[in-house]
């Protein structure tokens, strides 16, 4: 294509975006107007986006770790996170937690929930790897992907079943499929107000806690992968499985470890999202999973920093889209971004440029 033809094409595309965009909420003049009228709303939304993004990033890490090591899109990962949410909710129910329980009594249940949901998800993930993915390691690439889709359905059904256990876990509410309300335990004290700073931005202790835990998990993971021998072995296997085998790394063990870590992160994310959004539902894994996968791809799948960056960007995109575009179209925008990245820059933002690697 000649350069001028390309330019004409761009202009036509932009024109059509301007023409049809408003249908899906992309009405630029209105958006500018909204932002100018109430800039603090923008900052609040950015905060919401950051926190949701941090949670998405934790899930995205699970995708990226697994993909980096065995090149499998672990489709069931989103649903694993959903099950983590249910495990956390169950723990809350056992401790009899209710909305607004004093922080002092809530800390122990939260810690237990973190351990239980992370542990359960890690275990489930390892079991899944052993029975659904490992037998397919030498099969054509689509076989494990299809298997993962199957596992995702099984998990979803487990979530549905779990939600129906109201006779044993009263906190599960009335019907199996309905969204469950997760006790609101983190205080909503406004930090800026407490510090005596006058601002219209809402930033509560709850926000801060979720953000700190999420960032802490990411930093911890990064340290683990960069500094520890096991982390280095993981990176080695990701680079070249055969070579890693030759230098004496037990590849199977490393793969199990990867699934273990990914699962634990998903479980933690399940707890966090429950604490933050105060509602969980058995279908949330699918959408969250797709968003997290988008984030992983956006950052460059296989790249840990990329997954974090991608997660934050997707979180921001959906929060801003909810506010300024149209919440009904948010999913379409996110998936649209997914398609665009895969088509135009499959290596993602931070993905290495393989052309030079050869």
């Amino acid at each position, binding site marked *: 294509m000649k350069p001028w033809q390309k330019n004409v094409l761009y202009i036509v595309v932009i024109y059509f975006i*301007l*023409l049809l965009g408003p249908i899906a909420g992309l009405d630029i003049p209105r958006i500018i107007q909204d932002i100018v009228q109430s800039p603090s709303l923008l900052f609040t939304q950015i905060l919401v986006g950051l926190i949701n993004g941090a949670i998405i990033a934790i899930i995205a890490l699970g995708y990226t770790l697994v993909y980096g090591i065995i090149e499998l899109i672990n489709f069931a990962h989103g649903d694993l996170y959903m099950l983590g949410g249910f495990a956390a909710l169950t723990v809350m129910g056992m401790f009899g937690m209710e909305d607004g329980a004093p922080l002092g009594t809530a800390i122990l249940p939260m810690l237990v929930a973190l351990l239980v949901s992370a542990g359960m998800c890690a275990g489930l993930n390892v079991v899944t790897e052993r029975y659904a993915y490992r037998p397919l390691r030498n099969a054509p690439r689509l076989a494990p992907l299809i*298997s993962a889709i199957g596992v995702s359905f099984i998990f979803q*059904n487990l979530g549905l079943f779990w939600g129906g256990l109201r*006779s044993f876990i009263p906190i599960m509410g009335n019907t199996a499929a309905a969204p469950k309300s997760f006790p609101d335990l983190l205080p909503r004290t406004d930090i800026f107000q407490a510090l005596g700073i006058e601002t219209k931005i809402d930033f509560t202790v709850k926000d801060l806690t979720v953000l700190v835990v999420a960032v802490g998990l990411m930093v911890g993971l990064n340290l683990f992968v960069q500094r520890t021998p096991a982390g280095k072995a993981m990176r080695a296997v990701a680079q070249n499985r055969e070579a890693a085998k030759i230098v004496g790394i037990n590849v199977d063990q490393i793969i199990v470890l990867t699934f273990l870590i990914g699962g634990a992160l998903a479980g933690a994310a399940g707890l966090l999202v429950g604490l933050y959004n105060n509602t969980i539902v058995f279908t949330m894994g699918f959408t969250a999973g797709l968003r997290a996968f988008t984030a992983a791809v956006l950052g460059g799948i296989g790249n840990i920093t990329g997954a974090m960056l991608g997660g934050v960007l997707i979180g921001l995109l959906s929060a801003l889209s909810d506010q300024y575009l149209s919440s009904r179209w948010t999913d379409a925008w996110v998936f649209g971004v997914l398609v665009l990245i895969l088509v135009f820059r499959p290596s993602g933002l931070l993905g290495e440029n393989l052309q030079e690697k050869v």
Partner: protein
Amino acid sequence: MQNVLKALRANLILGGVAAFTVLLFGGWSGSMIGWLLGTAVGYLDTHEQSIPHPKVGLRIGAINGFALGLWVAAASLVEGLILRPLSGQAIVPLPQDLLHAVVGLAVTTVAAALMGAMQGLPRRRSKLAHQTTHGSLSRRQGTLLILAAILLFFPFADRMAQTGWIATVIQVLIFAMLALGLNIPVGYAGLLDLGYAAFFAIGAYTTGMLSSPHLGIEWNFWLVIWIAAAVAAVAGLILGSPTLPLRGDYLAIVTLGFGEIVPIVFRNLTEIRIVEPISSLFATLLNRPELAICLVGCEQPFNLTNGETGINPIGRPWLPFIGSFSSTNYLPWYYLVLLLVIFSMFMINRLRNSRLGRAWTAIREDELAASSMGINRVNVKLLAFAMGATFSGFAGAFYASYITAIFPSVFDFSVSVIILCMVILGGLGNMIGVLLGCVIIMSADRLYLPQFAQVLKGFLNTTVLPNIANPALRDFLAISVDPIQMRLFLFGLVLVVMMIVRPEGLVPNSRRRAELHSEDVVANESLADVRSVG
């Protein structure tokens, strides 16, 4: 007697299926399932042997059919005498019950014997055989004849036996069309499409918009179905084009993305107002709103798809002598969708055995080599998407008209996966396998599961629950024991187990079997990747 015992063992699975069916449905269902499965048994137990004469086939078929019939009869008696009282259903008098059993046994035996006899016909392989059997049937023709008879008379048999399966069968056939269509990109060309329901949705919504009072356009169904297929095909081209440079799992995810976007779009196209952007910019800058040129939905935002409520009612086909198809009479619908499925099979078979079909396989096998042999991979892949979409367009049009209402929630991801399940369960790239997969999954999902749930509920309520003291447990059982809620679990299990145990499907295409079982996966390098360097 020895023979019957052997036959009982040989037909364990089908016998189990037959018995299960009778246990669930009772009544004359034994005769129905005996008829269908008996024919299958007659074919399966004979077609691989060389049967010298129809009489021999008849005998083998009869023995095996009788064995199957014993299952049916036994299940009939158990159902009528034991299960019914336990699950709180109306009790059937004993003579009636015996009649069910005996007739079931007889029908099964006869059906199997007939099919067996057909397998004794000459194969008509050589010219010589052709001459000697001039004027009589060949084995293939005989088999097809029986199949045709089953398909033609099914609705009447269903009515006679009062089983009421025809509504499900129509659903099965709709999904058969979808599965056959999906088999083109996935099975033939090796392009995993996880968003296939999008094309189904596009076909259905096209029909909805063009033949419903909602938009005031009420065109004839016979015209609209072609438009729907064409629109779906174009959508296939458009949505397929960005995926061309991708392959494998990335392609799957992009198609999944489209599969998610399309229902969202249909859900949300309810308030369309389009203003020409340049004039609108001037209008804002000059603060003169009247300058903005409004194109669509000026007085009132235009409601294209009616959102979650969907489009309703949608026009029905009309034929001379039959008149407009009605919702109470399934017959015309059944024959119409049957015709569509046969038409699809015919067309897809032509595609497969053609220059284009070979190109699809070649692309799947080795894209780089195929391209070096003169295959335009862009065209060929796009055609795979477009052709696959076309048949789902037909299916969508029929579906919309049959249900007379469409909602966006009908076309979500799980539909795509269910269709994929059918293709994989039956055998990628094999039309008969895909149809079998479709029949198994759809009948399990739409027929057996609901009936099983109902029977189980009855059983729980009459027999189990009154005897349980613990109220929490009782409450739990009453709510949780619901097989319908196990749908996703079952689908997931099918996918995982099939991938591990039998990735080539129940009726494998010999080609795919070779492919999926090979240990050394050929690195199928995509041309685009290599070229992107330059």
